[in-house]
């Protein structure tokens, strides 16, 4: 009985984790790929016209140098909040905290889970 319960809890947790991963991927496609690229490499359809190039989110070294809290902050409040370019917009009016957490999760998958 106890093992069953643990198994059930575990599978529930993994379902939730999977849902968050899917939502992060989807949100990234809608809000971020226009600048950061469909592959997350910083080469979105807007990039050619931009004075500051969007960050390459597949760059393991650069992206590993940032904490999850830092990533959360720049997504919510924009590049200006961390003394970077205003071309990275603040998304706090479009996305809620759960959605930003899901995006941070997706950024981690992009930068650091190469397969």
């Amino acid at each position: 009985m106890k093992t069953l319960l643990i198994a059930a809890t575990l599978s529930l947790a993994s379902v939730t984790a999977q849902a968050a991963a899917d939502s992060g991927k989807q949100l990234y496609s809608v809000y971020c790929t226009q600048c950061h690229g469909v592959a997350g490499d910083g080469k979105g359809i807007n990039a050619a016209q931009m004075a500051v190039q969007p960050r390459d989110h597949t760059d393991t070294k650069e992206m590993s140098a940032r904490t999850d809290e830092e990533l959360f902050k720049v997504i919510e409040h924009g590049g200006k909040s961390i003394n970077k370019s205003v071309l990275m917009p603040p998304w706090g009016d479009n996305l809620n905290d759960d959605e930003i957490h899901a995006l941070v999760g997706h950024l981690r998958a992009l930068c650091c889970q190469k397969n």
Partner: protein
Amino acid sequence: MMKGIPVKLRLTLGIAAALAASVHVAAHADTAADVKQQCGSCHALDRDYAKAAKHERAERKAPPLDFAGNKFRREWLYSWLQNPVRLRPAGVFPPAHAKPSADGDVVDTTTLAKHPALDAAQAGKVADYLMTLTPFDGLIAAETYQPGTIAQRMGQMNFGKFKGCDGCHQDAPDTGGVSGPELYTAWQRLQPAFISAYIAQPAAWDPHTMMPVGDANTAAVHKLANYLKLIGEKQP
């Protein structure tokens, strides 16, 4: 007023007047039905999308028209509906039209369809009808924007370097980002109060908008609106 007119004729006149009024209402109802039928397959005409899950934005075939009467200038609607030139260089949902290339992602223009065009008579009726869709009179009434002037150089720096609007929008043909609607004709197509209200609070109009809030400060927003006026008035 009808003194001296025979009773019978008076009655007929009354019926004619009643008929004229009902024809007028029917014409409007007909246009509503036509628009629903011809445009509703792509455009939202009611507010249901705002209650749907956020992912609804990714499935939109066209911009919502449910608040058209609070957004557009009637003259612009009338002429654009007859000659619908492209407003969104990368379509309504840009990720669906982006494809990777050796030089980074490009817009796959072969996937962008031409907009249906109306003749002048239809365009007039449809424009009149769309102008009656005004659920946001309150947002417009709350707007304090008074159109003013700004120097080209200052306006452009503000739009680009300081606020980053040019990341997604063009302020001249082929200059600027492509994921948002072009803004060099925004002044010709949009009501001034809408421009200002929308820049300050895009999500109040459309909770699933892809437009962020660059700066909601009233003076900053009015400056941006004045720049759109400046560049819009230079367009033919």
